[in-house]
């Protein structure tokens, strides 16, 4: 199936994670132009290494969640030319709620929810001018089925999902739509480390008995960005091999 896209410039938040880099490569191969955000030199180098054979076919920009100046500079760089947003960005704060550090909780929610709302406001206004745009938030199966210690992570994911869902509700009639993808256990990035720690036993709980690959996630996101998926709006899709459907 060949995919057609309305526009080609895509801002990828959290652009240095393994999934984002896999997506960027798939995007470039589909003639899209990814703009990947990074927050330190290590991330910038990771992008350079991963996409070294695609010089001139992507861009990078600095964005540190919670740093409003960095947000301002991104929009100076991008201007009004943006068609897609794919959001992988997510800080992690693992703690029992009854044992959490209050300051960490406040800053975690500010960075992962309030700051994201500001990004969505800015991106939404850029897309509104074009009356076209697609927003994809990469959530997590933890939004439906958290483990102990994941309360803050899950709360931030669910709140962010709500922001994305409402963007699609509010701006859908003006051509700006959204979709949320909830991957389950992934054989890439943080997921890979977690699976290694669990000695893969946890995959026995997944009906398909395996992790989702980074390539599968990238191809699914590409489909969700395409015109073929335009009818999927303001909703979430689970991609967890059936993990959250059963007991």
């Amino acid at each position, binding site marked *: 199936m060949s995919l057609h896209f309305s526009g080609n410039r895509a801002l990828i938040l959290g652009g240095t994670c393994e999934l984002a880099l896999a997506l960027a490569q798939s995007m470039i191969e589909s003639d899209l132009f990814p703009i990947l955000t990074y927050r330190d030199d290590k991330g910038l180098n990771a992008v350079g290494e991963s996409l070294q054979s695609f010089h001139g076919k992507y861009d990078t920009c600095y964005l540190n969640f919670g740093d409003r100046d960095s947000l301002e500079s991104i929009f100076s760089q991008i201007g*009004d030319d943006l068609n897609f947003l794919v959001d992988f960005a997510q800080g992690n704060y693992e703690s029992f709620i009854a044992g959490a550090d209050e300051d960490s909780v406040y800053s975690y929610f500010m960075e992962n929810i309030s700051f994201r709302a500001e990004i969505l406001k800015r991106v939404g*206004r850029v897309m*509104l*001018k074009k009356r076209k745009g697609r927003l994809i938030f990469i959530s997590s199966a933890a939004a439906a089925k958290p483990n102990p210690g994941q309360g803050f992570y899950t709360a931030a994911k669910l709140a962010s999902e709500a922001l994305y869902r409402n963007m699609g509700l*509010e*701006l859908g*009639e*003006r051509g700006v739509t959204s979709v949320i993808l909830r991957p389950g256990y992934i054989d890439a990035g943080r997921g890979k480390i977690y699976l290694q720690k669990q000695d893969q036993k946890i995959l026995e709980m997944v009906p398909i008995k395996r992790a989702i690959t980074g390539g599968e996630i990238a191809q699914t996101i590409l489909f969700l960005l395409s015109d073929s998926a335009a009818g999927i709006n303001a909703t979430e899709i689970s991609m967890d091999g059936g993990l959250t459907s059963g007991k």
Partner: protein
Amino acid sequence: MDIFAELKKIVEELLDLEDREITPETLLVQDLGAESIDLLELAVTVNSRFKIAVKDDEIFLTRFRLYSAEAKQRGQDTVHYIAVRYPFLGEERIEDIMAHIKEGPQLKIRDLISYVTYRLQEV
């Protein structure tokens, strides 16, 4: 720059109005049927065309009723209280809005002109 002519053009485009008389006294919501999403798009377009920072709460007088209630609650002069928060309106216009506010949203094209003019002076 003829701010009124430019705003008229923007409103006609966004609300898909043809052969409709628009004057500075035209009410956006009551006369033209503008909805929330139209106002949001209007703010974005005004920002883009005039190259000015637009605060939706200000340009659309969103907090007018709230400020009015706050002033009464604090025992302060309502017109002055609102004028400080919406300096582009002028006291006469504030009094005019207060006199008609029970009839529905009072946002007029002239208020947009005042806001854009005020913001352009700041640039």
